[in-house]
């Protein structure tokens, strides 16, 4: 795993271009501590930071194909590269190296921009085609690897992280107000928008061709589901389970391909247990596993982790996450995720990747993606119960089902069923609302916008992030089963926008560790999309078919565990902290200067935290959102332009 950077700009000659590349790759040096490489000629430059995993001796980048006049800077892994290489050799291509990087060059020679469709992997790359004066930027289907770009006066710059783009003299960090509204509604900006005005993300499964001064962006793959009427027509549960296991086994097997050792995360939950169990089978000489333990019993899953370690006989290492640790690493977390976040959940993963690195590993498998692909999240159950209750809103009996949700949230469980029914908006619910499944989440998250400053509220007047999301849903969305609609919203938006980014790539790459995700193999994603909703969420049992397929791989206590989502202490982590940034970032003066939040409300929020009275989703999201927003503002030297900015809604990209 690596970091890439580059530009296409006829105004930049090679000498000044190289200087820019050096600065850009230095800004993302954490992504690739093993080597740096730069290449530039008139009007084009590519840079690279390398974390060497495959083709250790001869995989340096940027890599050229001199015969074809191609140059490539690539971040990621092509897991099916041995198969692709064999195919390409049959077609007459000769390889000079042992790396998967060269496979992309040959694939491009064979298929042009459509080469991406042949890759099973996680990647973001920039490929310069000199004969055609054409730059190709591409990103993997699920959005595992990041890629950002921006226009300069005379061209474009791009990089794995936005911070590298600010090395360009014409670019500086400015807040994009609708993106902040999106974070405080949907948890992440809607790609291509980012929190930085004028900085765009290449969306997952998209490629960009830049030729003749104009970028053309298009998707090369789309997540799709069967029509609702056909959704239940899949094979028998047993045959589907066998198919799932076969494909998952293969997805795990090809993700163990590396010239360095590959370890596995172990959370104590079902998904990482499956991945670790399958990996352990492939590695008879032993597997190393890594986990986080929490000081706070509410979040700790150590007992389940140890049970799985004993069952598999892995070499296990654990890092203890104390509340104070979260506060300590939080500024670096914000520097890495490059935007405000509403949860501290990335922070323990920052500690975990440091542990992995300290143990000499730089590649880990994780169970991420199983909840999106096989319907594991509580939001799917919640939507099912809400839909059931909404058909008979006055029913007291139906409302009792709400008590079946969120068994791990004691505050929630104290609620009366009729209060929960009211909170979930059963009476007012519109069953044909495309965002039906996500309305309670969006509503409870939006409540934290209370802390927005008057200027920000004025700038955003009339803007509705959820409506912008609804407006960009694919035409087929309305034909899908309600569970598939909810799965799509999680898989297409929250997964790349937050889970794989803030909790995934950024936290692992903070310490030069590459995460690999067997559940996100696109073959498995496509298979699971076609499985009947009744086999995925059976009654209120989440991931039914996955459990059935993998029950034999682990102790029953793990295989039958109800989903406990990964969480971390939020505002509580800061209550006991004496970290100096805390007070400075949230001071009345700092808040007023940044202009994003209301200084009076932030003062009261801090007082409530100090009094030990901060509770509830809104208060916690508000505190973490304000603190990370303030840290973000300071770290990226964001200019306060709110008082003069005009609303910039809609899509700038045309």
């Amino acid at each position: 795993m690596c970091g890439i950077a580059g530009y296409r700009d006829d105004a930049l000659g090679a000498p000044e271009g190289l200087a820019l590349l050096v600065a850009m790759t230095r800004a993302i040096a954490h992504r690739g501590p093993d080597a740096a490489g730069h290449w530039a000629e008139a009007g084009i430059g590519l840079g690279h930071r390398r974390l060497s995993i495959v083709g250790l001796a001869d995989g340096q980048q940027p890599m050229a194909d001199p015969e074809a006049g191609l140059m490539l800077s690539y971040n990621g892994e092509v897991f099916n590269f041995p198969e692709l290489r064999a195919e390409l050799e049959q077609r007459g291509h000769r390889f000079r190296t042992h790396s998967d990087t060269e496979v992309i060059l040959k694939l491009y020679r064979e298929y042009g921009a459509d080469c991406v469709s042949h890759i099973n992997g996680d990647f973001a790359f920039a490929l310069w085609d000199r004969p055609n004066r054409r730059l190709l930027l591409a990103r993997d289907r699920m959005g595992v690897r990041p890629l950002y770009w921006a226009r300069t006066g005379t061209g474009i710059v791009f990089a794995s992280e936005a911070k590298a783009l600010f090395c360009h003299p014409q670019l500086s960090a400015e807040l994009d107000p609708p993106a902040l509204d999106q974070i405080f509604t949907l948890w992440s900006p809607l790609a291509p928008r980012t929190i930085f005005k004028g900085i765009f993300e290449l969306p997952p499964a998209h490629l960009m061709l830049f030729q003749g001064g104009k970028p053309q962006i298009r998707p090369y793959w789309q997540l799709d589901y069967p029509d609702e009427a056909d959704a239940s027509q899949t094979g028998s549960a047993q045959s589907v389970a066998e198919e799932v296991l076969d494909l998952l086994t293969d997805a795990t097997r090809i993700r163990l391909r590396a010239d360095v050792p590959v370890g596995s995360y172990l959370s104590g939950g079902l998904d990482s247990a499956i991945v670790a169990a399958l990996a352990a089978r492939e590695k008879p000489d032993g597997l190393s596993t890594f986990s986080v333990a929490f000081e706070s019993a509410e979040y700790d899953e150590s007992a389940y982790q140890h049970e799985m370690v004993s069952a598999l006989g892995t070499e296990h290492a654990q890092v203890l996450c104390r509340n104070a640790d979260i506060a300590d690493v939080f500024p670096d977390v914000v520097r890495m995720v490059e935007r405000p976040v509403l949860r501290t959940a990335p922070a323990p993963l920052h500690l975990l990747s440091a542990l992995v690195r300290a143990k000499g590993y730089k590649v880990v498998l994780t169970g991420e993606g199983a909840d999106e692909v096989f319907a594991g999240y509580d939001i799917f159950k919640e939507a099912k119960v809400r839909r059931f209750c909404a058909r008979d809103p006055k029913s007291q009996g139906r409302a009792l089902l709400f008590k079946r949700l969120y068994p791990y949230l004691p505050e929630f469980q104290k609620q009366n069923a009729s209060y929960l029914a009211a909170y979930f908006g059963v009476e007012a619910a519109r069953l044909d609302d495309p965002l039906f499944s996500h309305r309670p989440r969006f509503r409870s998250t939006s409540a934290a916008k209370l802390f927005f400053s008057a200027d920000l509220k004025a700038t955003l007047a009339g803007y509705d992030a959820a409506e912008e999301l609804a407006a960009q849903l694919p035409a087929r969305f309305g034909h899908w089963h309600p569970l598939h609609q909810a799965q799509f919203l999680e898989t297409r938006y929250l997964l790349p926008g937050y889970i794989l980014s803030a909790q995934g790539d950024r936290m692992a790459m903070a310490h030069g560790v590459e995460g690999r995700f067997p559940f996100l193999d696109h073959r498995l994603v496509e298979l699971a999309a076609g499985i009947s909703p009744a086999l995925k969420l059976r009654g209120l049992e989440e991931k039914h078919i996955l459990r059935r397929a993998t029950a034999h791989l682990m102790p029953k206590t793990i295989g039958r565990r109800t989903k406990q989502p990964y969480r971390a202490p939020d505002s509580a982590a800061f209550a006991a902290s004496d970290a100096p940034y805390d007070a400075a970032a949230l001071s009345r003066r700092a808040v007023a200067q940044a202009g994003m939040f209301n200084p009076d409300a932030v003062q009261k929020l801090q007082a409530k935290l100090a009094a030990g009275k901060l509770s509830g989703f809104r208060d916690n999201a508000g505190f973490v959102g304000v603190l990370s927003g303030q840290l973000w503002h300071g770290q990226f030297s964001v200019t306060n332009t709110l008082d003069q900015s005009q609303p910039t809604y809609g899509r700038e990209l045309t």
Partner: protein
Amino acid sequence: MDMTAHDRIRAFIIENFLFGDADSMVENSASLIDNEIIDSTAVLELVAFIEESLAVPVADSDIVPANLDSVDAIARFVAERGAGPATRGNPECVSRAF
């Protein structure tokens, strides 16, 4: 002691749930849930306020929207269940809360 129960409840909500942002406060008859002022966990803070500052005990079965989902509903509930904060209120708690 000129504050009515309605005023006290409004003041508590503005201070505790709206962090002083009185402009976002709704009318006494409006739903606190529908207007995103109280979420499913924050209602427990409201219950604590009613018990501690208004000195009216709240049973689990009382925690229903009909009793607690608007300023009017809370005031009605308090008036029905307690002798009223003016006579039953714990002065220490009241002064701390306001």
